[in-house]
């Protein structure tokens, strides 16, 4: 298959790196070539972060450029807007509608942007409340797995491949909560305007 590019963006500390690792392992377990790119260090302290996972028959570049991502998964609403131009015009957009106020807003230098959710909906975003759904799954820190569930509906991998990697990858005590979060993420996507 030709190369598929998935970009996962969010705020440092939200678990984008772990989620991208799960996705990369699912692709690898399906027999595809995979590359992944992530950034560690200072941005992990609450800054804007992005990771890229690319898979297909043969992958060269581990990263991507504006206008080249097939899927954009944003763990936070404003980050979806920040990275939206990385998505191909026909690409699929999954967004956690939770806002984490950035520093200029927290300290009152700037107002919180308005109309972002509507603008993203206009761009065809699948908007889900991943934090709330994670709570429902009994695992509040598993919003990242909820989003993987939503992402999985747009990717050609068997649900069981995802469940196997999640089971292998998460701490044993949290397997049930994370699997529930994954299923609820898939279900939320079905309820929404999921294409």
């Amino acid at each position: 298959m030709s190369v598929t590019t998935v970009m996962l963006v969010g705020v440092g500390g939200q678990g984008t790196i772990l989620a991208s690792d799960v996705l990369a392992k699912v692709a690898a377990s399906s027999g595809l070539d995979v590359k992944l790119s992530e950034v560690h260090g200072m941005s992990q302290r609450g800054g804007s972060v992005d990771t890229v996972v690319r898979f297909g028959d043969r992958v060269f570049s581990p990263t991507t450029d504006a206008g080249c991502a097939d899927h954009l998964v944003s763990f936070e609403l404003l980050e979806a807007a920040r990275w939206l131009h990385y998505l191909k015009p026909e690409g699929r957009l999954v967004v956690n509608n939770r806002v984490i106020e950035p520093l200029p807003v927290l300290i009152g230098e700037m107002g919180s942007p308005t109309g972002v959710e509507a603008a993203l909906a206009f761009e065809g975003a699948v908007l889900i409340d991943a934090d709330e759904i994670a709570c429902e799954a009994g695992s509040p820190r598993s919003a990242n797995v909820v989003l993987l569930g939503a992402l999985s509906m747009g990717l050609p991998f068997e649900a069981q491949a995802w469940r196997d990697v999640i089971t292998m990858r998460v701490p044993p005590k949290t397997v049930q909560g994370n699997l529930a979060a994954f299923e609820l993420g898939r279900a939320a996507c079905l309820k929404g305007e999921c294409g």
Partner: protein
Amino acid sequence: MPTLLSGNEAIAQGAWEAGVVVGAAYPGTPSTEILENLVRKSGVRCEWAPNEKVALEVAIGASLAGARALATMKHVGLNVASDPLMTVAYTGVGGGLVVVVGDDPGMHSSQNEQDSRRWGPFGKIPILEPSDSAEALAMSRHAFELSEELDMPVLLRSTTRLSHGKGLVETGERSEAERERYRTSRPKWVMMPGAAKIRRVDLERRLAVATERSETCEFTREELRDTSLGIITAGIPYEYVREVLPDASTLKLGMVFPLPEQRIREFASRVGRLVVVEELDPYLLDAVRAMGIEVDDAGLSHVGELSAGAVAAAFGAAAPAKRAPMTDLPARPPMLCPGCPHRGVFRALREMDAVVTGDIGCYTLAALPPLGAMDSCVCMGASISMAHGFALAGGAPESRPVVAVIGDSTFAHSGLTGLLGAVYNGGSETIVVLDNRITAMTGHQDNPFTGRTLSGAPAPEIDIEAVVRALGVDDVHTVDPNLFRPTEKALRLAVEHEGVSVVIAKAPCALLNRDRPDPFAVDESACTACGICIRLGCPAISRDASSKASIDPESCVGCRQCVQVCTYGAIVRTGRSCDIGSVL
């Protein structure tokens, strides 16, 4: 089945397979995870050194003993280690000696983006540069043999994209390297002028052998496709070239110093237009031009990180259709975490209108608003020596206090010598050691002051206060920076003291604290929207629609910092709405 490994994991695996016996490093993004992975493997002794110079010297000592040894560091760390590096090129090695340097094009987590390939011609040191995880493993493994074969240290150059990119890798088994019985060899290892002059001449001989070796290097590959365009490249940029110019012929260099001039000439003769594609400095371009070969500059920027899109654009491809970036979005810089103990120190320094010379660590984020309490950040350890120089020059005209701030690990790295100089020369500055019991920025590594080693074993917990007193400082205050009033009082006393003063602000990194006391909330009826809590720069506190403070219960760690600044008693303890449970 192949394993998905990061470049750093692959380098660790390759070194282990090569039978490395000793590994030493100082943590630095993007190189940190190499030793963190190597230490988990059997048969190898790994250590965090207090700085990169020590790390490399430990590795050189192991090499002298005949063992294969590895030292890893980030690009600016190699500056610190450059003293031993430049001379170990003369001595050569016993057991294979490999130095991994992680460059950071684009400065994702660094203060500069120097191009470490320059160490090759400068230090006369062979350099291997992998382009993906599989090659990182193979080169790391091979580098030890190459080092022994050439009797030279070998530099393995990585970049952030390689170190923190992942790819599929076939791992192998470890083979123990043969070790000769140690024998003293003074002409080789004692670099007094007489011996060094002989080794200097011998270095030219070894360089000539290394150049021959580069001509046959298995990691240098000529790939002829359409020969109208030929591209010389190496490392991650090779992947970008293959991505966007799949038909072009490529000469992919595995050894980027010394360069294989014959192979470059042959490739140049087989292709029409010859172009170099590389990231950062025009290192390959200048070298190929110096060979008298006609070659085009791809016209790529020498600033920042390259991408496939940038390479495509340089060869005339139209940019892909895309949405216009959304404007007017607030930036999202990183910030000090909720409950970060550094906040108490910087709040006080801002209140005191101090000139603050800063250093390298999470606390550099205090330079950003709203704390805005840092005047400089140059390199590891510079805070103390720069404060001394600033005071020596007469300080700020308005007699503002001069205060250096430095983290515990950075203090061990290169703060001690600066402090020694300040005391020796009768300085009067105040130095704050931000002792959060860990090397936090790079992801929580232990250091000489934490009481644990890289392998998790207990270690002597070196007492910073005792060290500071032993260096001749009489005025020493140890405070808990989470308690704002005592912290500010200690800082004011230290500043007033004639002579060098040290304040040790000791409290663990908030991310190490697993306890999550109930969060605080704002009593709206008591809040006057004065904004004093907002100016702490805590990610959990924001202004609501009426400008009053609001606390996000999920982010709040219950640290009580804001409670101490609210003069209206408007911040009160509450319960959590959704218990924090499992973590992926």
